[in-house]
């Protein structure tokens, strides 16, 4: 099988941009990635565009604008993991020998406020059961019951990520907060306060993948694994948002399924990771991800946070970009945004947020479907 390299990356900042269309943002990110990779018209043989709310032919609109069509352009929806799904398809096609160079990008312009999802049925909406942040709260409450996680730990995740986000020019929120102010923000659904939830927003990110061809030139980042998994049934709190589940705590999470497969594919384990970007849709989701990704033992998230291991300068920095809590979450772009930031880390181009000597990096997203993606990158 062919090895896959990341030949170039590009990002349009995440935030709110009244004067720009979703296509404008996509063009900006795609142009940057193509320029970095030195790829021009005719230089890639397929394109995969991730979006959840972009609508029909989002990818075609972006590539039409820059005069680069004719090749297969496939729009991909996998909720919060849409970008991971697009990356899996692009990498798989190169590995299989179908293409030499593939463009993978993600675009999003999310509606404002609590988002109405076509996922729920009318009876669920009318019964008040389509309350997405409340499902996060049920999971957070359970995490607190099952382990030593407290509300201070939840606030601590926000403080850490917002501190990291100060130095990320592509983040939406770039000011520090403290535990007291996080806990003083409005309770959305106990134990989750407003500032513990990420903000849906807008943005774009792009990655050019190429067949390695034995070219291991310095600075070329290797894509070691790009795995997507859905849920297996049984857990009532998994991201497929079922109305019932089993009294059985041994059902593996979609994230664990994806991580296990990605570690095997990449030939690395969690102990080999230097830097991680993970899904912090809410503060508890980040702590749960530590466990599901194997960064700590089950029940060990609070201890890992207490040890300050996941801060910049710690043993395994998590979300040095500021995470979704600082960047906001444009669904189709968020997973590829993680890949962009981790490529910068591996190249030593992350500026203030650089994890010194980073050689192996992991990106994780999980959301409705359920869809979980885990990407492993290395030098």
């Amino acid at each position, binding site marked *: 099988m062919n090895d896959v390299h990341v030949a170039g990356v590009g990002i349009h900042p995440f935030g709110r941009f009244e004067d720009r269309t979703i296509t404008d943002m996509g063009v900006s990110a795609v142009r940057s990635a193509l320029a970095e990779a030195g790829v021009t018209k005719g230089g890639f043989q397929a394109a995969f565009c991730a979006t959840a709310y972009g609508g029909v032919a989002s990818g075609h609109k972006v590539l039409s604008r820059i005069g680069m069509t004719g090749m297969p352009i496939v729009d991909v929806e996998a909720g919060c993991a849409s970008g991971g799904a697009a990356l899996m398809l692009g990498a798989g096609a190169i590995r299989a020998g179908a293409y030499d160079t593939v463009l993978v990008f993600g675009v999003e312009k999310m509606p404002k406020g609590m988002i109405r999802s076509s996922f729920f049925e009318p009876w669920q909406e009318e*019964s*008040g059961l389509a309350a997405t942040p409340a499902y996060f709260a049920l*999971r957070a409450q359970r995490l607190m019951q099952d382990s030593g996680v407290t509300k201070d730990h939840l606030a601590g995740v926000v403080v850490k990520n917002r501190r990291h986000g100060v130095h990320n020019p592509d983040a939406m929120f770039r000011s520090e907060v403290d535990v007291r102010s996080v806990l003083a923000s409005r309770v959305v*659904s106990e134990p989750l306060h407003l500032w513990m939830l990420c903000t849906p927003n807008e943005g774009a990110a792009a990655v050019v993948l190429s067949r390695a061809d034995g070219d291991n030139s310095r600075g070329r980042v290797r894509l070691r694994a790009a795995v997507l998994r859905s849920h297996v049934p049984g857990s009532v709190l998994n991201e497929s948002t079922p109305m*019932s589940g089993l009294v059985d705590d041994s059902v593996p999470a979609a994230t664990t399924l994806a991580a296990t497969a990605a570690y095997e594919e990449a030939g690395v384990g969690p102990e080999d990771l230097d830097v991680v970007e993970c899904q912090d849709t809410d503060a508890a989701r980040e702590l749960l991800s530590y466990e599901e990704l194997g960064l700590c033992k089950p029940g060990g998230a609070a201890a890992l946070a207490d040890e300050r291991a996941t801060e910049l300068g710690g043993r395994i920095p998590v979300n040095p970009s500021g995470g979704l809590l600082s960047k906001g979450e444009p669904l189709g772009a968020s997973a590829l945004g993680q890949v962009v930031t981790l490529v910068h880390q591996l190249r030593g181009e992350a500026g203030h947020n650089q994890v010194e000597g980073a050689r192996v990096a992991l990106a994780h997203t999980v959301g409705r479907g359920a869809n979980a993606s885990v990407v492993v990158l290395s030098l």
Partner: protein
Amino acid sequence: MSVHGVARPVREGLFTDTEPPRLLASRCDACGRHQFPRSDTCPYCAADGALPVELSGTGRLWTWTAVTTAPPGYRGEVPYGFGVVELPEGLRVVSRLTEPDPARLSAGQPMRLVVVPVQVDEDGQVLSYAFAPQDRP
């Protein structure tokens, strides 16, 4: 509370029109696992022909919170309780809770199924299921 008159369920096939009410589920003939809402095909073993059953009306609280802002498509009152209750059939069910104050609920607390109005429109009350603390009305 009455489920008769102008009141109507939010969807047919979710709960019985009895006092006390029961949730309508299915039990897989092949693997024995339960599923709510009712489904012909078992989500666990993919066998067809699951049997309709009624679930126990009492269980224990497993996790809980409150919804403080009306979610999309919901026209009833806020805040309201929201949680998961464990039933003796080995099932955890997502449900509204009648108690809107999370501080008044605790893990393992006994709960019972009730039917509550979730909104009123020109045709009358729309009813859905909820769990109430067993020791409170």
